[in-house]
Each structure stands twice: as structure tokens, then as C-alpha cells.
């Protein structure tokens, strides 16, 4: 019988508590950073659904983040919509687009899947880059934030906005954690492991891949919408392939196949590159060495390796967690 | 010319955390066949993999023709004149049947009076492979892959042939054929180390039988003795 408090959830709880605490104590920029990283973490989790659980390594996931951002920008700035329905529509739109894309691409595997998702996202990028109506490559400024006065949160206060993003992240985590520990999640793991066998057991593999592709797209859309609100603007840059690439690296660095791993990767890589780049303009050198070191000394990723040692260690076992 | 061609002394083998072989010693005399029998999971494959250095985490001594080989890499061991037919067959799916064979082709290392193996001769032995020469390795039927694996081992013109369940998945008639041609080869002086689940095949070909159980050698003797050892058969093979 699995325990309610798996290591993952334990660490997740710790991270959230820490961020909440920090969002009170750090100054303005720290709060901005918390919001930024939290949004990134949501996006990383959505990518991990594909990479870590379903084995679909996408290099075009930022397209859906971008679509979420643009939908939020266009609907509120150009059409004057309220933010709340806009967010829902942004998520739905990201889902819809990922469904349309997914139908075609989930048949592909490995590098071919990587490249076709890349191609798709580059086409979206090119579209928004050219489209003057949505600001072309200068992007679209002036995006507002969701009004949360009713909940006692002043969104223009960065601490409150950080809290808001944290709450969203927690909800996303809980939802995805449930999803991935459900039979549906188990199917995905099976598909990742051996697609053919799953098929011969009677599982319509493509449908499940499509389903997770859409879910991941929607969560990415949500993070895009949040990002647009956080930064107040959106530009085609947000959907360039390198954005997907960097987040993919974060997910791998954190450790694929667990949502917390994705979050840890996002947090550590972002914080590190922020810190190092303030110290030296050669921050890439250090980040590069850091990535290499991870593979050499923590081949399951930062969190993955940490979790492995924890599970082997005596105190974790003695706490009654024989296997989780 | 009876000398120990292969000698394994006090072999210990490990996977990650588990200690699988616990002090195995066997030896194979030149020109003879040693059959290793044992249950699923007894450690037979581990033994062969250790000899071939496919498994590197191991202790003890392994000697081939009097020379220590346990610290050599696999390709050096093989080039001493040892050929291996692994239980998973190790067919290269990216290569055609012909390429699978050609890649292995090598001259004999020792001076022997055995007839040389080449494409023609293995095709003669397994005509089916000739028909499928241009097929990809993955497109063969299970039995055909087994034939290819054996044929490929022969292409290296070995002095010692190590076979892991060579009859697995083969039709009864082919098993008989293989049995008789291995007997031929033995007569020509080829030494063999054989792991088998098919008892009748193993006993009829072998000069010596070793029984492996839970990572240790439990019994060694001739096939005739083995047939009488009901106790051994029952405890370690479950028959």
C-alpha cells in the first residue's frame, strides 16, 4: 500500500512552504523572482508530463506557452475581455491547438518527434513574428493581471502575485500528481516503457499520447497566461525553440519522470543562472560545467539522484516507506 | 593432447548489489564438451558472461590455454579463439543476414586440421540462411535467428565454442541436425562449453556435466553418472 506522504509530496510541501515564507520576507525583486520561477515550474511540470511520463521529448512545447500568452494578451488588450474568462479561454485554446498538432505528431518517435514539434513551434513563432497586428517581433505590451481583490490579494503587489502563482502551482501539482498516480498515469508509464506491448494488451496508444499531449499543452497554456500577466507583455520570443530547449534542460537536470524533479530543475537552474550571471558575464561556462557535472555525478538528475539516496537510506525506510 | 583449454577458478560474480556466482570452478578439457545444467536463474548465463567479460564485475581466475584472461577486454578474449552464442542470440538487426555473418568472419588462430568455416559452408549447414541472406536481422523468425547466431559463431573459426541454450526455439528436426553436426565438430577437436535446458541434447553431446544451483557448482560428473543421480536431478533441476 502506498503512503500518502511519498518523498515527492514531502519535498513538494517543503518547497511550497519555503516559497510562501520567502514571499513574505524577501524584498520586491525576490518576490518577482518567486513568481517568475513558479510560472516556469508550472511550465516545466507540463513538459515533464511529456518527457518523463510519456516519453515524448518535445522541443516545441513553448509554442503552447506562447499561445496561452498571446491569447491572454489579445483578448484582454485588443478585445477588452475580463481576465478570468480570458484565462480559461487561453487554456482551452492551447489545448485545442495542441490537439490539432497532436493528432499529427504523436505517431512519431524519438528524434523525429523532437524535430516535428520543433518545426511546428517555429512555424507559430514565424507567424507571430510577422503578424504586425499582434505587435510583430516587438511583441504586445500592456497586459493586466487577474483581479483578486475578492480574495484579499492585490495582484499589483508582487508578494501577492507571487502567492497567487504559488497557489496555482500547488493546484496544478496536486492535479497532475493525482493524474500521474492514477491508472491513466500507469498506462502512460507502460506506453513509455514499451508501446508495442501496451498495444497488444489492448491499449489504443495514440489516443493516450494525444490525451497527455493535450493536457500538457493546456498546462503550458496556463503558464503562458500567467507569464503574460506577470511580465505584462508577450513577444514571439516566448515561443522560440530555445525556450523549449532551456526548459527541457531544466527538466532533465532536475530529473525526469517526477513532477518535483521538474520543479527542482527549474528552480535550481534558474536561480543559479540568475546568480552567476550577476557575478560574471561568463555564466554560461559555469552553467555548462554544472550540467556536465550533473550527468557525471548525479545521472538521474538533481532530484532523481537525491530521491534515490533517500529511498535507500535507512531513515526513510524506517519511516515505513519501503517502496514508493 | 588433453589439456585444460578453459579453466575457471573460484569465480565470484556480482550484479549491482547481488552476489550471483559464489565461487564457481569448472574446467573444460581440449576437444571435449562440458554441459552446464541448472534451473532458471541459477547463474548459468552469468557464468558464460563472466568468462566472455561481458560481465565485468567479477573476481577469481579464468584461464584459457593456460593464460589468465580475466583482465582482458571481451574483444581480446574472443580473438584468442573463443566464440559465443548468447541466449538472446545477439543478432544485429541493422545488418542483413549476410552482413551479420561477414562481420564475424575470421581465420582460425591456432593451427588446426579443422575445415575452415566460410559463408559457403555455413550456408550449406543452414540453407535457410542463404535464402534469407538479404533479410534484415530482425526480420528472421526466432529459429532462424538461432541458426544465424550459431552460424556467426562458427564464422570466427573458434577453438572453443560457448553456447547458451542453442536449441531454444528450434524445431525438433533442426535440433537433431545440430546435435549431429556438433558431434562431428567435437570429433574434429572443437572444444565446447554448453548451457542447455534440453537434457537429452545436453547429455548426448557432453563428456562432462556440471550442475549449477544458486550460484554454486553442486555436482560434476559424466553423463552416465548423471543419468543415475536422481537425487541431484531432482534437487537442482527439479526433474
Amino acid at each position, binding site marked *: *500500500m*502506498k503512503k500518502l506522504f511519498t518523498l515527492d509530496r514531502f519535498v513538494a510541501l517543503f518547497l511550497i512552504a519555503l516559497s510562501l515564507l520567502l514571499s513574505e520576507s524577501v524584498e520586491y525583486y525576490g518576490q518577482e523572482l518567486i513568481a517568475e520561477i513558479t510560472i516556469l515550474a508550472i511550465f516545466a511540470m507540463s513538459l515533464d508530463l511529456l518527457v518523463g511520463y510519456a516519453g515524448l521529448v518535445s522541443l516545441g512545447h513553448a509554442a503552447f506557452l506562447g499561445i496561452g500568452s498571446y491569447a491572454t494578451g489579445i483578448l484582454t488588450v485588443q478585445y477588452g475581455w475580463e481576465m478570468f474568462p480570458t484565462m480559461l479561454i487561453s487554456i482551452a485554446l492551447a489545448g485545442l491547438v495542441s490537439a490539432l498538432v497532436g493528432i499529427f505528431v504523436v505517431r512519431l518517435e524519438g528524434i523525429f518527434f523532437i524535430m516535428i514539434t520543433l518545426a511546428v513551434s517555429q512555424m507559430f513563432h514565424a507567424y507571430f513574428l510577422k503578424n504586425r497586428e499582434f505587435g510583430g517581433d516587438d511583441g504586445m505590451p500592456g497586459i493586466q493581471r487577474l483581479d483578486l481583490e475578492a480574495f484579499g490579494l492585490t495582484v499589483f503587489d508582487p508578494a501577492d502575485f507571487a502567492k497567487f502563482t504559488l497557489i496555482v502551482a500547488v493546484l496544478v501539482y496536486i492535479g497532475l500528481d*493525482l*493524474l500521474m*498516480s*492514477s*491508472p*491513466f*498515469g*500507469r*498506462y502512460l*508509464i*507502460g506506453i513509455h*516503457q*514499451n508501446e*508495442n*506491448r*501496451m*498495444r*497488444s*494488451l*489492448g*491499449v*489504443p*496508444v495514440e489516443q*493516450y499520447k494525444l490525451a497527455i499531449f493535450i493536457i500538457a499543452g493546456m498546462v503550458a497554456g496556463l503558464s503562458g497566461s500567467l507569464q503574460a500577466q506577470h511580465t505584462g507583455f508577450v513577444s514571439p520570443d516566448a515561443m522560440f525553440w530555445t525556450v523549449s530547449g532551456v526548459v527541457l534542460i531544466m527538466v532533465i537536470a532536475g530529473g525526469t519522470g517526477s513532477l518535483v524533479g521538474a520543479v527542482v530543475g527549474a528552480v535550481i537552474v534558474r536561480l543559479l543562472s540568475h546568480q552567476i550571471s550577476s557575478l560574471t558575464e561568463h555564466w554560461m561556462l559555469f552553467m555548462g560545467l554544472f550540467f556536465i557535472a550533473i550527468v557525471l555525478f548525479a545521472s538521474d538528475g538533481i532530484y532523481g539522484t537525491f530521491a534515490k539516496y533517500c529511498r535507500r537510506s535507512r531513515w526513510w525506510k524506517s519511516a515505513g516507506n519501503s*517502496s514508493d | 593432447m588433453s589439456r585444460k583449454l578453459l579453466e575457471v577458478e573460484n569465480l565470484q560474480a556480482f*550484479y*549491482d548489489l547481488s552476489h550471483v556466482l559464489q565461487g564457481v570452478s569448472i574446467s573444460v578439457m581440449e576437444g571435449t564438451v562440458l554441459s552446464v545444467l*541448472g*534451473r*532458471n*536463474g*541459477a547463474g548459468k*548465463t552469468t557464468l558464460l558472461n563472466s568468462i566472455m567479460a561481458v560481465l565485468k564485475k567479477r573476481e577469481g581466475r579464468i584461464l584459457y590455454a593456460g593464460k589468465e584472461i580475466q583482465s582482458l577486454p571481451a574483444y581480446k578474449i574472443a580473438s584468442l579463439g573463443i566464440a559465443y552464442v548468447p*541466449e*538472446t542470440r545477439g543478432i544485429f538487426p541493422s545488418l542483413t543476414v549476410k552482413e551479420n555473418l561477414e562481420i564475424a568472419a575470421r581465420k582460425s588462430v591456432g593451427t588446426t586440421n579443422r575445415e575452415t568455416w566460410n559463408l559457403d559452408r555455413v550456408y550449406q549447414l543452414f540453407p*535457410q540462411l542463404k535464402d534469407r541472406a538479404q533479410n534484415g536481422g530482425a*526480420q528472421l*523468425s*526466432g*529459429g*532462424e535467428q*538461432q*541458426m544465424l547466431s550459431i552460424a556467426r559463431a562458427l564464422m570466427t573459426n573458434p577453438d572453443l565454442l560457448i553456447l547458451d*541454450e542453442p536449441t*531454444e*526455439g*528450434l*524445431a*525438433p*528436426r*533442426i535440433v*537433431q*541436425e545440430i546435435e549431429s553436426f556438433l558431434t562431428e565438430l567435437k570429433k574434429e577437436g572443437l572444444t565446447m562449453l554448453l548451457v542447455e*535446458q534440453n*537434457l537429452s541434447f545436453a547429455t548426448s553431446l557432453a563428456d562432462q556435466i556440471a550442475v549449477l544451483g544458486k550460484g554454486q557448482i553442486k555436482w560434476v560428473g559424466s553423463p552416465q553418472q548423471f543419468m543415475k543421480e536422481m537425487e541431484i536431478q531432482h534437487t537442482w*533441476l*527439479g*526433474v
Partner: protein
Amino acid sequence: MLKAEVLRKSYGSLLVANDVSLQLEKGERRAVIGPNGAGKTTFFNLLTGEIKADSGRVIIDGMDVSGQSSDARARAGLGRSFQKNNLFTDLSVIDNLSTASAVAARLGKVFWKPFSAFREIREDAENLAEMVNLTEVLDTPVRNLSYGHQRQLEVGLALATKPKVLMLDEPTSGMSPEETKVMLDLIISLPQSLTILIIEHDMDVVFGVTEKITVLDYGSVLIEGSVEEVRNSQVVRKRYLGDAKA
């Protein structure tokens, strides 16, 4: 229960299934034998839809599934094991089996409840493990299993799907004599209502479980008949059995 009508398949000039037909009644146990490369596995693949037939029809329990994909056919009731191990190699034995059990229970659309809450699935999987004699290695990742144990699991996965027609492709190959015996007994002990189609080269198994045998050769049915008929057939001996084992 299962009907194959004039299935045909060729690879280039090689005809691997030459209008093969076969009919299984409910509860029937049939063996398919034949020389290596005769087309037995291909025939299985044509039935399950892993390979698309050039022509011919497949009917499961009165339902024509000819145009359907392999997963649809599996849902219609075909369960199979593979000749070449086809497992979830990074998962443990129990996770392999419980995944298959979950599929059998059609749980794929359940996303709101933890998998671990389905105790019956776990029990199911444990029972299966016991049936195929893998209780000892329940938590071992499959890639760390010995080959024979993997073969046992292969059969376990096929059983886990609770099929109407169970198709086993050389289930006992690679198993020790002891395990072969266990497997034989297991197959014999399966419910009488289960239809079984089995490919084997081990004649003890073939003769032990089936009443009727279909012999394939060069992609065609060479003969189809009772155990006795096949055992005594000259052409089967010549092409397949050889002389020793008669």
C-alpha cells in the same frame, strides 16, 4: 470463437502466409507447429493485427475485426505472448503484471483515483505471479531477471489480459524442464472455456495440452488433424519432427 479465413501475406516474393484458414471453437485448444520459418509467428501476428494481412479475414467471437488495429483486436478478446520477450523492462514483475491487469479491467480512463487504491488489481497481479511461478522475484526489475524468468513473465502478461482467446508463442522455450512442467500444468489447468492457440517446438507440451494440431510449412497448412494423425504423418516427420522423436 476465432476464425481465420484465407489469410495471405507476402514479403516481396516470399509468401509467408499462403491462404491460411483456421477455425477454433470456444474452449478448443489448438497447437500450431511447423519448421522454423514456416510462418507460425507471422500467422499469429496476422491474427492479432500486429502485421497487416494482404488479404483474408479474421473473425473473433462472430465479430469481423479484419480492418482493425491490434489494440482493437486485443480488446475484442485476443491475448498473446511473444516469442521474443516483449516486456516493460524497467518495471518490476509486479508492476508489469498489474499494468496488464489494469488494462484488462479497462481502467485507462480513470484519472482521479490513485492506482494503488485498486487493491483488487494488485491481488490479481500477485495471483498471476504465483501462477507463473515468479513470486520470489516480485519486486525485481525485469531487466535483472534471468532469461527463463522473463519467459515466464511473458506468459503471465498474456494471461493477465483475461482474453477470450489465449495465444501463446513458444511459451516454454528457454524454460528449464522444471518450469516447463509448471507451465504445462498451468495451461492444462486453465478454465475449460478458454480458447487456446499455442505455438511450440516442445512436443511434450504440444501433445500434453492439445487435441488438435495444425501444421504449417512454407506458409501453408500442411495438415490439420488430431495428435495421432499428426504424430504419424510421414510428411510431418520428414519436414519437422525428424526421426528420433516419434
